[in-house]
Structure formats: C-alpha cells, structure tokens
C-alpha cells in the first residue's frame, strides 16, 4: 500500500535536534561562573530560601527578610560576628544606670542615611513609635515591650506616645527607660524590628501606620546600613550595593550582594554545584552524606538556636496527668532519631533551651529511660499501656516530620504499648489546630530571636501567646520574673535553670533535638563566622579568589 517513499528518518531528526541544542549551548561553556567573577568584583551570591515578603523592618518576620534587611539597615547596637556580643553600631557608646532600667545612647555624628541625611535620635523615636502603632499591626512589636509603656501604647491603652520610655534628648542622644531590668535588651537592639526607618521616605510614600507603603521599592528605599537596595526583581534576584554614605564604609569589603530566592533546596544545591552561588540557605538531607564524603570543606553543619519538640495538650486526659507526659517524653530515643533520621548533626535535646546559651545549659535533662517510663505509666493507671486511649499526633506536612513521627509512634508502641494515630496537615490548618488547642500531641519548633535562655523559656509563662499546651504554673512565672530582676548573670542563669527544671518536670513538652544549620559555602567566602544565631554581619565578609 503506502509504505514506499520515506524522506524523514528518526535518527536524522534526533541528530538535528542534538546539534541544535549543542549550537545553542556552545557559548555557555565558558566557565565564567558567579563564584569566579564574584571574587574579582567582590560580589557575594547568596541562596536565600524564599521571596521576601517585604523589606520593611517593621512589617516582616522571617529569616529570609532578616538576611537582606541586615545589609540595608543598622540598629543602635550591632553584634560581634564571632561572639555575637553587642558592639557599637549607630550608637557609639551607651551608659546603663545602676538599676539597669535607664539606658543613654550616644549616637555617632557621622551615621548617615543613604540619601546623606544624618541618622538622629529622633529617627529612633519615630521608628519605635511606628512599630508600636496599633494600626500598623506589626507582629514583632512585642520585641520592644520591655520599654516603659510600650505595650500599653501598642495595645491602644495609651494614646500619648511621649509617655513611652524613649526620648530624644538631642540629635545624638537617645534615652530609653525600661519597665524592668532586661538583661537581653541590648541584644534586642540588633533585631530588625528595632531598626530605624527614614521618616521623610516613609511619609512620602504612605502614612506612618499603614501597611502597603511603597517606600521599600528599590527606587524609593532609604537605608542606613552598609549596603543600599539596588534592584528587586520579584522571584528572581535582589541586588544590594555598597553604601558610600555608611559611617564605616571604609571597612566594608564587599561591593555587592545578590540574593536569590531559591525555594527548592535541590535546585539551590545544583546552583551551588555549578558555581552560581557562594552560599546556600540549606542542603537537602539526602545530600549531606555525599558532601561529607566528596566535598567536606564546602559542607557546614553548625548548631542553631532552635529546638524541635512535641507539645502535649495538658487540657485533655490522659495528658493532663504529669506522669503520662513524663513517661511519653522519657520513651523517646532521641539519639536514634538524630543518627538515623535527621542525620544533619542535630543534637538530641533533653531540655528546651539549646545547650550553652550564653553559658547556660539546663540543669536537668529528660532522659531516655523506658524502664522508668513504664513504671510511671503503671502509676498513672495504665499498666503495660492497658486502657490507654489512642491519641492523635499532628504534624505539618513534611517528609522529615513524618519520619520522626513514625519513629516516635514505634518507640511509644514498643516501650509503653500504646497506639498513636498520625495526622499530617497543611501548614495553616496545623497552626490553627495548635492555636485552638484542637490536638492531643503536636509537633513544634522554636527558634530564639535573641541570644538568651529567655527567648525560649519566656513562651511557657502564663501570658505568652505561644504556649499552646494549656500548662502554666505560677511558680514558673515567679522564677522567670526573678531571673529578670537578678543582680548578676550567675544569679539570673540560676533562676532560668530553676524555671526550666520545673518545666521539664511538668513535661508539657517533649524536647527532641537541637536544630543545626546545614548549608554549603564556597571556600572563597571569608569573614563568615559560624554562630548559633546564623547571623553574619556582611560588613565583615569578603571574597578571596582562589581560581586559576
């Protein structure tokens, strides 16, 4: 019939396509990667997780945003890149009163905004008024609650801002009055929520306390940090450039930083592997072993200021019984979880506050002790798990949360002979259930905002909105109060220890492990010091080219 004449041959087409592909790609094979050109131009290329919500320090709440904002703005106080101790930034010095509730900051006269205006004490008063304005709905306003009357103003109970404990004595002197001595107050001043914003710019593009202000567009942005916002291409790249008006510009070595919002960790790793990035924000767990073996010098695993834990809903029986909670917490083999599941150098956590936080480590730990756990269960009326109801464990959808939940489900089955149902939920549903107390056991994680045990222990005080367990204890609150008023660091840490001991005994939570930061970094990157907060002031970072 009609099978005679054939002009097209499949192999010919394939050859044609392949040669076209090669022709198109020929020019990319020149090995001029970002990493190589970056070292020549001092341009750092960073994988930055997600697209930032905004670059307004009073609006945003995430790590992604922090990484960019810390290049664009600077607070009164900075931090030492190695030790994280507070060091002078916009304030060149400060004086703290004997009762430690009055701070006087002397601002540097050469601190400038990127448009040349001087950075003044009034800028800080304005900025703090802005974040505390009820209308702005700033989620991080509570960072300033230690300032006298700040909370009342933010909650609308006080209308007159002059009664809030922040005053500009003159252009370069700022007085701050606190309600109570707050040992970590200086550390908070390097949190972006307390950073200054440029009044004229804010008011040119919107009102002080309205969201949706356009001042953060690159053409409008005025900052006072070591870098200025050059461009912001949605979902592509954010470029910042060295700010010539920055008071310490002479010591800023990088000329530019490019932030890439790469959400997919595997994509980010591939970008790193092909020299498009100097630093990644993370590394897929399954790649850790590969890098350990092949490129250990590029793999960084650092302790991080966060704890992975489970919440027990103490309002629901049988979890209202302390012994049941203790038994559950004691039958988790944390070592096995970090070595067999997470595999990223995480440390098993027997306490809530990460170890060695400013020298503080919890005095007691929840042990892995199945024998004792069994005995406690028996005491509580569930010998060998008899009559124990089937509980539900809720976690937000993620492969690693699932694996951990399955492991713990097995451990509880093995050691206590009880059954747990696992439920994974979409992030927002999971959050809503946690918040409304609609769970038995829930997975949780907490990252400290500032370096103090308070950043962790504070959430189990009665008034904290982040305590979803239904547990509270006046004695715990009293010990936390005492830690605030303690006369010296040792005393303070002692009170933290006593409070945490109480918490671990009551066991409304079962800590599981201390987070680590796992990321890749090119050997070119210098002055990037691993630390527990994963904060890296860019003014100290530079690139050394080692490519020949």
């Amino acid at each position, binding site marked *: 019939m009609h*099978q005679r004449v*054939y002009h097209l041959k499949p192999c010919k087409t394939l050859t044609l396509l392949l040669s076209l592909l*090669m022709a198109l790609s020929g020019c*990319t094979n020149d090995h001029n990667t970002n990493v190589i050109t970056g070292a020549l131009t001092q341009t750092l290329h960073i994988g930055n997780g997600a697209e930032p919500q905004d670059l307004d320090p009073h609006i945003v709440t995430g790590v992604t945003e922090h990484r960019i904002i810390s290049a664009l703005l600077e607070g009164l106080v900075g931090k030492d890149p190695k030790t994280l101790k507070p060091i002078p930034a916009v304030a060149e010095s400060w004086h703290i009163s004997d009762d430690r509730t009055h701070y006087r900051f002397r601002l540097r006269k050469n601190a400038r905004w990127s448009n040349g205006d001087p950075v003044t004490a009034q800028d800080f008063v304005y900025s703090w008024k802005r974040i505390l304005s009820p209308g702005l*709905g700033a989620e991080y306003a509570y960072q300033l609650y230690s300032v006298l009357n700040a909370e009342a103003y933010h909650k609308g109970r006080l209308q007159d801002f002059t009664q809030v404990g922040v005053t500009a004595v003159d252009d370069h002197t700022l007085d701050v009055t606190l309600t109570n001595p707050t040992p970590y107050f200086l550390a908070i001043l390097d949190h972006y929520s307390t950073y200054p914003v440029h009044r004229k710019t804010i008011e040119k593009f919107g009102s002080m306390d309205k969201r949706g202000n356009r001042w953060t567009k690159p053409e409008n942005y005025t900052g006072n940090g070591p870098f200025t916002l050059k461009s912001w291409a949605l*979902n592509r790249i954010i470029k910042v450039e060295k700010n010539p008006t920055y008071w310490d510009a002479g010591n800023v070595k990088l000329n530019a930083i490019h932030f890439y919002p790469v959400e997919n960790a595997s994509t980010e790793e591939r*970008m790193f592997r*092909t020299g498009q990035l100097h630093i990644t924000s993370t590394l897929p767990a399954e790649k850790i072993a590969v890098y350990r073996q092949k490129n250990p010098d590029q793999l960084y695993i650092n302790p991080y200021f966060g704890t992975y834990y489970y919440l027990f809903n103490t309002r629901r029986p049988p979890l209202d019984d302390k012994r049941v909670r203790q038994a559950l917490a004691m039958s988790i083999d944390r070592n096995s979880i970090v070595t067999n599941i997470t595999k990223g150098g995480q440390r098993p956590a027997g306490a809530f506050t990460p170890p060695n936080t400013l020298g503080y480590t919890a005095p007691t730990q929840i042990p892995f002790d199945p024998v004792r756990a069994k005995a406690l269960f028996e005491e509580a009326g569930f010998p060998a798990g008899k009559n124990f109801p089937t509980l539900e464990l809720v976690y937000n959808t993620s492969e690693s949360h699932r694996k951990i939940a399955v492991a713990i489900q097995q451990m509880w089955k093995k050691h206590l002979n009880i059954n747990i149902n696992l439920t994974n939920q979409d992030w927002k*549903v999971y959050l809503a259930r946690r*918040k409304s107390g609609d769970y038995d056991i829930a997975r949780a994680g907490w990252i400290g905002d500032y370096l103090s045990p308070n950043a962790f222990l504070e959430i189990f005080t009665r008034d904290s909105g982040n305590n979803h367990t239904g547990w509270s204890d006046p004695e715990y609150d009293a010990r936390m109060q005492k830690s605030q008023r303690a006369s010296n660091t040792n005393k303070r840490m002692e009170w933290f220890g006593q409070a945490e001991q109480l918490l671990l005994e009551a066991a409304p939570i079962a800590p599981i492990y201390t987070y680590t930061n796992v990321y890749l970094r090119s050997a070119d990157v210098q002055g990037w010091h691993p630390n527990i907060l994963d904060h890296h002031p860019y003014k100290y970072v530079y690139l050394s080219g080692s490519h020949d």
Partner: protein
Amino acid sequence: MTLFLLKRILQAIPVILIVTTVTFFLVRAAPGGPFDTERTVSEEVLNNLQSFYKLDQPVHIQYQDYLKNLFQGDLGPSFRYPNRTVNEIIADGLPVTFELGLYAIIFAVILGVVAGIIASLRPNTLQDHLPMSLTMIGICLPSFLLGPLLVLAFGIQLEWLPVSGWGYSPGDKILPVVTLGSAYAAYIARLSRAGMLEVLGQDFILTARAKGLPQWRIVTVHALRGGLLPVVSFLGPATAGLLAGSFVVETIFQIPGLGRFYVQAAFNRDYTMILGTTILFAGLIITLNLLSDFVTAWLDPKQGFVKK
C-alpha cells in the same frame, strides 16, 4: 460564525462568575487564615491586620466589594507581599509563564507532529515502535523527575546548559522548555499518529496516490489537515494546562513565573492572590478552549466554516 463566537463569549461570563464566587467562599472556609504564623500574633495585632484588609466586615460585604473591584480590574493587595498588589504580581509573572508555555507548546507540537507522522507512515514497524515507545516514556516521566534528570545530564555532567534561571544566561530556557513540553509532545505524537493513520487510509488519499503524487505532497497537502484535527482540539486544554501547571518546572529551574505564586497563595491563604490567579487561569482556559474549538471548526470541512 459570529453568532457561534458571541454565544461562546457570553457563556464564559457566568462561568467566570461562578468560579469567582466558589473560590471566594471556599478560601474563607478553609481552616487557618492569612495571618496565622508559627509565632502567635496577639489579638490586637490580628484585629488591626484584619481591619486593614477589611476581613472584619461581613462576608457578603467583602464579596460585594471584591466583585466591584474586580469589574474595575483591581484584584486587591496581596496579603503575603504587603508592598505589592495582585495585579502587579500577575503583570510580573504572567509574561514569563506565557513565554515558557509558548515555547513548550511549540516544542511539543513540532516534536510531537513530526514523530507522529513518521510513525504513521510505516505502522507496526520499527519506525513506528521506536518513536511511540519513546513517547510512552515521555508520558510516564513526570516533570519533577525529567527536569532533574535533564539537569544532571546536560547541566552538571556535560556542562552544556545552565541548571537554572530564565533569560539570565544563553541557553537557560532550553531545559525548562524541554521538560515542560515533553509530556505534551508525547500526547501530540500519539494523537497525530492516530489521526494520520485514519486519514491516510481514506479514499481521497488513495486517489492522490493513484495520481502519482509524491509522498511528501500527500502528507503535507492532503493528509495533514485532517490528520491534525485531534491535535488541534487537544491544544486548547493542553496550552491551558501548560500555563496553569508550570509550577513544578518553575520551581525546579528557578523561573520567576506565576505558577509558583498560584500554588503558594493557597498555602499562604493569601485570599486575594488565590482569587486573582484562579480567575486569570479560568479566563485563560476558557479563551484557549474557545480558540481551539474555532480552529478545529475551521480545519474541519464538515463544520462548514470554510467556503467550499
């Protein structure tokens, strides 16, 4: 013809309205809100946020306001990205998604039609089996697997092509286009093979052969028009699927398109963003289906749109 078009356009309006309404109420019924975060937001802050975005008003008022703004082309501010409006985000991402989808569909059509024709010319021989089994692989390989495999081969091992980006460096569009287009190329190949086989067996082709016309003329002039009919009716929904489903490819290749916003808006409970993108894609699907119906009708002599 005009009546046909007019009728279809008028039909589209209630469809869009229904999609809008259902989506509007569904997103509000979903548990969790746009301002739920890991760190609990205080009651006062939450109230202020809700009143700023007018979420504290009765739902029917919110709905009325939304429709009113929609008719004026205003999709509202994004809850997730406070300094951007949904219109701005769409204006930024849509061209990229369009470009990606357009290249992918062109790639799919060329590869698919050529493979389909080749296969149909010698049914049940190696020339048929080889391209058809390749297309079977194409259909079976999901883009989240094919993408990384292509990257591994051409990006990392051979170092021919960039592993990510869109228009940042030469050649970075090739892998995403191939990844996105492959599955569709496979479908198109199978459709055009079947269509061609049917047409090639008909009497008028026999007549053409009897006239002694060369094979290429028979294929291009006589058979192709009828043989591609199934492909054309597939192209409408396929293009819409390509555009709305580019999320995976955009994520793998770090492409700043709209697909990522479309999906993440749902996770973020970014109500306005969910609505904006849903309405947009609904409109696109309707338009593209309309277009493909129109072209099908035009190609098919039985429909009588073309003058005899």
